[in-house]
Every structure is written in structure tokens, then in C-alpha cells.
């Protein structure tokens, strides 16, 4: 089985957002980066599918030199190959998808995994864009994948419940937390990953279709009032919710 997993290098979720001087992106100074958390789940699932069916896992990441850090982590977790699709410029989702689709096509994977969304821009577009560009079906927000005989029976999250989706391979899967518990790279894995090569390709060119006009912080919410310090505050809280906020 040929498995590909597409991963992204993003600011740590504990990052405090500071808008950069351009007014269009984050001030990158002092930000710690990490593999997007849903992508870790995708890498873990790729490894489990490989170990069950035998085969090879290739991790791909589109971005600049720094994305190698996240590719190294994937190698340390156990993927077989890593490819950096290089572009120093920031791309929109369409641009990322064009780059990934062009690199994935010659690999002809049976299974392509993504995280359900990347926690930087939260567009939740790239996985499905790639699937459509490659003419493949996709299953989003997946929490269970059972594969056999060229088919996959998946469970995915929907509003207030779950949906079972059947798909045929090759297919794209977008991993949600709960699909598995991602492994921590072993010390041996980390050491081995340092010496594994990361293939570099220039990312296929793409037109930008969505432009950012401004980035700003949401309006700060003013601290409200402290209604009390024990259960005697409850009647007043209920009154405020009914009469002032009118939400219950």
C-alpha cells in the first residue's frame, strides 16, 4: 500500500497572537512552531495502515526551510520518506493544494491522509481541494478507518453525532482527534531521523485566488462584573441572564 501524509508547520497553539507590521500576518518573532496537531493524528494513522498492510509512507509539506522541522518529526515518528515542496512565499489554500496535488500525482498513493484542518489559517480546505484535483473521494473529520479489499468504511463526526461513510481507494482521509493516539517519537527514532534525507522539490506554481486585505485582533471583551462569591449570587445571576442579557 502506498500511503502519503500531508503535514503543516504551524505556530504553537499557546501562541499569543500579535499582528505583524504588514497588518496582514502574524508577527513571527518569538513564535514556537510545531506540527499541526491534527496532522500528528494523520501521521499516526498512516503508520498504522502501513504496519497493517505493509507498504511505504511518504510525508509531504509545502513551505519554507523551516517546515523541515515538522518533516523531521514525521521521520522520527516512523515515516519512510519526506518531501519538502519549497516555496518561501505564503500561499492561499488553493496554492497549497495545487503544489501538493502536483507532487502527489506521480506518487500514485492508495491512501492520502491530512489533518482535518491546519490550526493556523483554519481554512479546512486543502485536503478536499487536493482530493477533487486528483479526482478522488474524501472522508472528512474521520475518527475511524477500517480498510479492506480496496474499500474503506469510516466513521466521521457530524453535528451532534456520527456518520458512517464508505469509500473506495484511492481516497483522501482528513484526520480528527480521537482517530488514534499519536505516538511520541522514540529517542532512537529522533536520532535516526537526523540522518534521513529530506527530498526537496520546488512547489508547482499556482495563482492566488484569495487575498488577505487585513488581519486584526477581535474586539477585546471588557471584563464584566463579579456577581458574587458563593451560592447567594445565583438569584442575581439568573436575573441578569433573563432581564439584562435576555439569553434564557
Amino acid at each position, binding site marked *: 500500500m502506498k500511503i502519503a501524509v500531508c503535514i503543516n508547520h504551524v*505556530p504553537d*497553539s499557546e*501562541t*499569543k*497572537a500579535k*499582528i505583524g507590521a504588514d497588518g496582514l500576518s*502574524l508577527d513571527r518573532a518569538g513564535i514556537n512552531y510545531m506540527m499541526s496537531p*491534527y496532522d500528528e493524528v494523520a501521521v499516526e494513522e498512516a503508520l498504522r495502515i502501513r504496519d497493517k498492510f505493509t507498504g511505504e509512507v511518504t510525508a509531504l509539506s509545502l513551505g519554507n526551510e523551516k517546515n523541515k522541522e515538522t518533516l523531521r518529526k514525521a521521520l522520527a515518528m516512523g515515516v519512510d520518506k519526506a518531501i519538502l515542496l519549497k516555496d518561501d512565499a505564503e500561499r*492561499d489554500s*488553493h496554492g497549497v*493544494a495545487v503544489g501538493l496535488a502536483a507532487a502527489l500525482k506521480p506518487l500514485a498513493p492508495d491512501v492520502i491522509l491530512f489533518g482535518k484542518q491546519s*490550526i*493556523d489559517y*483554519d481554512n479546512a*480546505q486543502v*485536503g*478536499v*481541494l487536493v*482530493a*477533487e*484535483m486528483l479526482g*478522488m*473521494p*474524501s472522508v472528512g473529520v474521520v475518527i475511524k478507518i477500517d480498510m479492506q479489499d480496496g474499500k474503506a468504511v469510516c466513521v466521521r*463526526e*457530524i453535528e*451532534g*453525532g456520527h*456518520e*458512517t461513510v464508505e469509500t473506495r481507494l484511492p*481516497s483522501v482521509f482528513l484526520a480528527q*482527534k*480521537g482517530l488514534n493516539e499519536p505516538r511520541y517519537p522514540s529517542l532512537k527514532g529522533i536520532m535516526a531521523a537526523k540522518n534521513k534525507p529530506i527530498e526537496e522539490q520546488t512547489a508547482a506554481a499556482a495563482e*492566488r*485566488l*484569495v*487575498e488577505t*486585505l*487585513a*488581519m*486584526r*485582533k*477581535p474586539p477585546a*471583551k471588557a*471584563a*464584566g*462584573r*463579579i456577581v*458574587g*462569591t*458563593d*451560592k447567594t*449570587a*445565583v438569584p442575581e*445571576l*439568573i436575573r441578569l*441572564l433573563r432581564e439584562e*442579557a435576555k*439569553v*434564557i
Partner: protein
Amino acid sequence: MKLLVFAEQRDNVIKKSSCETVRAARNAADALGLECIAVLAGSGVEGIAGALGRYGASRVIVVDDPSLAAHSSTACAKAIASVAAAEGAGLLFLPASQMGKDLAPRVAVKLNAGLASDCIAIRIENRDIIATRPAYGGKVMLDVRITSAVKVFTLRPNVFPAEVDGENAPVQKAEITFGPEDFGAVVTRVDVAVGRPDVTEADIIVSGGRGLKAPEHFALIESLAEVLGAAVGASRAVVDAGWRPHDEQVGQTGKTVSPSLYIACGISGAIQHLAGMSSSKYIVAINKDKNAPILQMADYGIVGDVFEILPELTAQLKQVLGK
């Protein structure tokens, strides 16, 4: 040019988030002087289509085919893109529901369109749409503009009002032929919990964190949620600890929510949690630490013990609300 808006139905019931999207689409169409057409796909859905007129559709095109009885993202995307092409629609709106998030990128590729996802505000400038969308889990807001000829937008549920104004709309049928190749992924079963709304759609969310001290104490959260008809939410700490399922997690690595009322119980308010719920209309925080960041953004705070306050709040609300 026309505006086409996709309405999602499950079991032949149109979802509330789609009513919101149709109304927002109509408002945008009016501002741009365009016709607002809705498209509905499924099997036996003709009867429910006309009602979309009450949310602003001037006519409704149904793709009604027995093969669409079970939802397939691949077939449904083909239906939407075919109708858009036939109508010459330059703008498309879809709800940013789980179904919409599956469909919109496919439709965008088929129409060579740019896609702005999970928008929370739409405004018109120079006869063009500027959309506002959150990024980094809600820590920042982006204003974006799509530069391609055809433009696709998905709208976050629970943000735009679903005002009813107008009559049922005329319904037309589109004839689209589907083959086996269109059904790459098919839904074979749907399990939806009855009675409890999802955090992304809920009007009220009661959320618990580490301050609950043990998973069994979430019964206090559930009782309060029950009385309010609210969804149950959770902080990352308690989800990571295995106390609560991940689909309840609110925050940057969980769900970003916009309810009318968010009640945070025993949640101190990590940056990534605050980002995910800061767009709630009203926030109540119950926390015994007066320095907890969540109290800085709460409209109403009680600095006290959740184990004392929650049972009292639940009991009194039961009386007040007559439950």
C-alpha cells in the same frame, strides 16, 4: 450574474444553518442587485424546497434523484456545480457545516473558483464581497477578498440570523445524470444523538474544565445543560485526560463556537480555549480563582466553588424555567 446558495437537508429537513446562509445570501444579493437562487439536492426533497423562499430565495432549483437518498459528497458537489454552471452563477454561498466543508472545496475546483471558508461577516465594497473570517482558532480576524471570476463562500453556523421574511418560492427541477463514478464516498449510516445539540449549533453551551476535579463530576454540567437545553462543552485539559469525548472540546484544537450564552465552569481560560469561545454573545464564568483569565472576559462572573454553585444554579433555573 446570479448568486446561488446551497441548502443542506438531512432526512428531508432543512438545517437551521442553511436557513441562516440563505438569508445572508439574499442580503448580499440585494446589495449587489443580483438574483438569489437556492439549490437543494436529495431524494423526494421537492416538497420542502419552496419554504426556502421564506428565508430569501427567489426561486429554488432541486436536484431530486433517488440515487441521492444517501448523501454522497462527490455526487452532491457535482449537482451544485452543474446548477451553478447552468445558471451562470458568479457567487456561491454554502453553510460551513460538516457537509458544507466537504462540498465547498470540490465545487470551487469544478468552477475554478476561490473559496473563503467559515466567514462570520460579509460586507460589500465597490460591488465586491469582503468577507471576515477567523484564523488561529479565533485569535485573529482576517478580511479577505476572492480574486477569481467565480467566488465561493462558506458561512459559519450560528452567526448570521435566519430571519423569516417572504413567501414560499417557485421550485424548478434540474435534470442531472449521475453514474456510479459520481459516488466515490457514500454515507451508509447516520447516528445522531437525540435531544442534545452540538456545540457548533447550540444557542447555549455549558462547559467544564479541570476545576470539576473528576470525570464523574461532569454530571453537574450535564444537569445544568439539560435544564437549559444546552450543549455540553469541555476544555482541552479534560479531553486530553480522557474525561470527555473530543467532539465536546472547545478551543483552537477543538471547536470554535458562537453561542448566545457560554457558561464556563471550573475553566481557567488557556489562550487556545479563550480563542475558541470569545465570540460568544454572553459569557458566564464560575471559578474559584479570582485571577483566572476567563473571569477577565466574562460578562458575569462568580468567584466561587463550582460544587456549591452549580447544583444551586440548576435547582433555581429548574424552578424559574418551570422544568
